[in-house]
């Protein structure tokens, strides 16, 4: 499938690859290329950034491979308690959420 071919091609280029190069390498027209890219982006498999190449506006495509939680994400944890807002689907008022209150007190406890 063209999606797989495109994803493999982007993955091979750690510094990203121009959209125009992808189109030429895979020998597809620009319409098909854009639509395939949109599909891959929708599935969070690639991302693109605008770039000016040879005086023309194009995009550079990057593969989005899983790198693990970053330093920021470690702050979801407080004294072994995980942030209750993360993954919660209840429409709540954070100021009155008992679980969030407990989490905030876990942070205070952790720091003192």
């Amino acid at each position, binding site marked *: 499938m063209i999606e797989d071919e495109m994803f493999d091609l982007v993955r091979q280029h750690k510094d990203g690859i121009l959209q125009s190069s992808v189109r030429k390498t895979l020998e597809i027209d620009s319409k098909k290329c854009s639509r395939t890219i949109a599909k891959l982006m929708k*599935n*969070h*498999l690639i991302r693109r950034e605008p770039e000016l190449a040879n005086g023309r506006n194009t995009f550079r495509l990057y593969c*989005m*491979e*899983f*790198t*693990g*939680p*970053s*330093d*920021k*994400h*470690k*702050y*979801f*944890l*407080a004294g072994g308690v*995980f*942030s*209750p*807002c*993360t*993954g*919660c689907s209840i429409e709540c*008022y*954070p*100021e009155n*959420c008992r679980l*969030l*209150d407990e989490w*905030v007190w876990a*942070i*205070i406890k952790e*720091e003192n």
Partner: protein
Amino acid sequence: MVDLEDSVLQGLLLNLVGEEGIKVITNMPEGEVTDEEVSQVTDVALNVVRRTLYILFENRLAFYRRERNKDSGWLTYLWKLDLSGINNLLDDQLIKLIKNLKTKLAFEDNNMFYICNNNCGRFVFDVVSETEFLCPICGDDVIFQDNEVVKQCLIKRINELEDP
């Protein structure tokens, strides 16, 4: 490769799909499988498997393909797990948590708090002023609580989440 032993990922998945859901994720067979096959392999009830897969689908962590049986016309859903989008989900959740903490900080900033000696709860000024500064639950006296430590903790955590 996604390390499901990571405490952050464990916490996220636990909040999303629960313990049974984690069992589904860790034991899910490779490739495309039906929900019934997943249920058999993981030994988790079919309704729990379906619920888990739909939650994962909503969060772009699982995908399905529909196949129609030509004879019966029945549709079969073939599921595939793809946790590579979990970083995006973590980033989305990070934004949500920061927003909630900022709301909470504004609430702490704009209110005075009172607590009951019997640990009945924490009440805002408007509530206890109507009960003559007696606990609305047990009727005992309430005492003023300085919330500076809470505010400082919220500011610090917001900063850490925004820019560690």
